[in-house]
């Protein structure tokens, strides 16, 4: 392919559309919505990159992937080289290419974004990662000679997996301990199949096993073994990546009625426990007809689109600000709309009412308007007086965020937590208040993103290496 195409020609190439399942069909199945670029589309899209001498996209990426370099390798049809380039900075490109909010990160910083459309960096990342998986041409990273030093990783979400990968490559004896019966954290129990097929994750985990990482499931660290006990068993350093936990509720009347779920419960039943295939799988889920999902983040979008797929007639988002303030990825909002999800913005429920058997049947809400910006910089929703209204619903999914996972904190008294229960760490290294213990991901930051969790895991891996070398805290 032509590599020294003048910019003028590059600018003429249109941003390549992502092939998708038809909205009407996909709203009734759990298969992946985005089908991925063809090779031709990827090559066209890659040509759009101007190969800026001072690329700003890299700054926009939380882990600073060398974006122009990997795109240039795509242009040269060296897909293996392109994946290898990405993997220098990101261990899970097939995942991040699908779920990162690129429009706020790398693509927002793309020079083309202002006058034209940004290069589809995320889709290109996904393309090469998929190419690697589908062609089976995985490059097994070169491993340093075995050091025999044991490291424990608590939690198998993106932070733990990333940390494990790097430490295994450094030659250490790494064990990942996971509380649930499948590995992947939110990637397996939270993010639905239609956005992130489980087999992709499975391949990533198999690769890690091939690298020599040991995986132990059903291991609730803190309860079955405290961190001190793990040290006694010979682990020299521990990385804690236990993620967010404890879903928040609004504490309004009626939230414990039947038919009211946290998003975590709703999504876990469907994803981890396969309730969509009940009774072939044992775990049931209530099939709502009129479903209100409270919140405007990715979790809310995943829940509402799941409700639609399970058969809801009306799948609705209730969000207390306007669409512009929604934290969800634009693509998810767009997909949800195409699938027929209703958006009720500037609406906040104040109570739920139930029938005589304790099932939710009505949401009473108030309308809001936007006031002054708050601490987050987003305009604060302000109640409109006398705006109460009712809506018939038979299911509610509360998706307003999570607190922190309590078990490690409860069972490790010398670990410093902040007032929200998040583990306090030294930014640059992930070092906690407890010698030999590192932490990263949502348990440190509160609910954030896959790429930030992954980045934190890698940072900690570097710091662990240093700690093993100099034994300094």
């Amino acid at each position, binding site marked *: 392919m032509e590599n020294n195409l003048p910019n003028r020609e590059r600018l003429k190439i249109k941003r390549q559309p992502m092939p998708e399942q038809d909205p009407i069909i996909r709203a009734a199945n759990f298969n992946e919505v985005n089908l991925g670029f063809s090779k031709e589309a990827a090559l066209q899209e890659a040509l759009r990159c101007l190969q800026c001498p001072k690329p700003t996209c890299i700054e926009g990426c939380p882990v600073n992937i060398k974006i122009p370099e990997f795109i240039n390798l795509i242009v040269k049809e060296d897909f293996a080289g392109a994946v290898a380039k990405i993997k220098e900075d990101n261990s899970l490109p097939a995942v991040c290419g699908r779920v990162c909010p690129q429009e706020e990160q790398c693509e927002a910083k793309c020079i083309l974004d202002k006058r034209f459309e940004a290069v589809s960096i995320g889709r290109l990342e996904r393309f090469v990662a998929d190419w690697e998986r589908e062609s089976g041409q995985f490059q097994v990273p070169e491993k340093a000679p075995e050091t025999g030093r044991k490291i424990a990783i608590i939690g198998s979400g993106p932070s733990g997996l990333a940390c494990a990968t790097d430490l295994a490559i450094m030659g250490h004896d790494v064990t990942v301990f996971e*509380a*649930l*019966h499948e590995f992947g954290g939110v990637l397996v*129990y939270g993010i639905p199949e239609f956005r992130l097929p489980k087999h992709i994750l499975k391949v990533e985990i198999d690769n890690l096993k091939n690298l020599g990482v040991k995986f132990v*499931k*059903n*291991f*609730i660290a803190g*309860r*079955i*073994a405290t961190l001190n006990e793990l040290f006694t068993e010979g682990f020299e350093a521990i990385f804690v990546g236990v993620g967010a*936990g*404890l*879903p928040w*509720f609004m*504490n309004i009347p009626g*939230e*414990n009625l*039947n*038919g009211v*779920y*946290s998003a*975590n*419960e709703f999504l*876990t*039943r469907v994803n981890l*426990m*396969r309730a969509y295939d*009940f*009774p*072939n*799988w*044992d*775990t*049931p889920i*209530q099939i709502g007809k009129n479903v209100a999902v409270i919140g405007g983040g990715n979790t809310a979008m995943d829940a509402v689109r799941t409700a639609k797929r399970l058969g809801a007639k009306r799948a609705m988002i209730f969000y207390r600000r306007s669409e512009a303030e929604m934290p969800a990825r634009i693509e998810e909002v767009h997909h949800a709309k195409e699938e027929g999800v209703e958006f009720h913005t500037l609406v906040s429920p104040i109570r739920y009412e139930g029938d005589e*058997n*304790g099932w939710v049947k009505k949401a009473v809400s108030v309308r809001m308007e936007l006031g002054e910006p708050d601490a987050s910089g987003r305009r604060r929703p302000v109640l409109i007086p006398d705006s109460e209204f009712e809506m018939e619903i038979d299911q509610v999914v509360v998706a307003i965020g999570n607190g922190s*996972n*309590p*078990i490690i904190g409860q069972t490790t008294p010398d670990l410093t937590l902040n007032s929200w229960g998040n583990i306090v760490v030294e930014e640059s290294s992930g070092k906690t208040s407890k010698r030999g213990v590192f932490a990263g991901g949502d348990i440190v930051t509160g609910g954030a993103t896959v790429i930030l969790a992954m980045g934190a895991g890698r940072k900690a891996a570097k710091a662990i290496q240093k700690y093993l070398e100099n034994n300094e805290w």
Partner: protein
Amino acid sequence: MPLNKIVKTELLGPEVKLFEITAPRIAKKRKAGQFIILRVDDHGERIPLTIADADAEKGTITVIVQGLGATSKRFLQKEAGDIVWDLAGPLGKPTHIEKRGLVIAVSGGVGTAVAMPIAAASKKAGNTVYSIIGARTKELVILEKEMTERTDKIFITTDDGSYGRKGLVTDQLKSLLDDGIIPDELVAIGPLPMMRAVSELTRSYNIPTVVSLNSIMIDGTGMCGGCRATVDGKTVFVCVDGPEFDGHKVDFAELGRRQKAYLEQEKQSMEAFSHQCRLEVKAKKLKIETA
């Protein structure tokens, strides 16, 4: 020995079975009042079960299962030598045990399996422990021998009078209270209506009353909130804040409704399960016939 291997089973009553399973780490760590979450097979749901007993040396734990839904009935078909797919624990806060004086443990149905380790630990801590076991009928009275060995005095009631005193556990408790036998603490574990009735009774006597709540759970680590209940007007997550709470403060009516959330689906699973069983029987017959 492989993890999660069933080493022993014992039928304690109709549809009530004891399983001793290898789980060395849990056996070593668990304390009275804690539970595990288990998946019987690949498609199984995650079911919480209280650890009734454990043998740290042998590396085994004991759970007692009542065949209610399709999952638990499938579990009952397992025998020694079988493996359970997943087993995680110990979960929940351990029972707070201290020397108080007289402790009465009231239990109904498989609740006796939960009450037993608590009664035993209370006894060990220097308390005098009485046990009241209730059941619908004689063959549903479980763990009588074990409970007798671990406590100072045991009372049995059956609804139909086929064994022990005829009546409910609350009738027996009322008699004791009337006789001036007022415990310093009471532990009530069993079906919700029973725990509720016992808590109502002890409220007027101001007897501190602990109940163990069995809400529907998934992860058991505080991640899903499916297990929530209202205690003292506040929402709690039973798996991490409990499972034991002050019986005088629990909203039993709400918990009762929440426990029934999946009744319809359970019927469906049961139908699928019986269908499967019928097919298996047919297949067996066919095999015999063709052989």
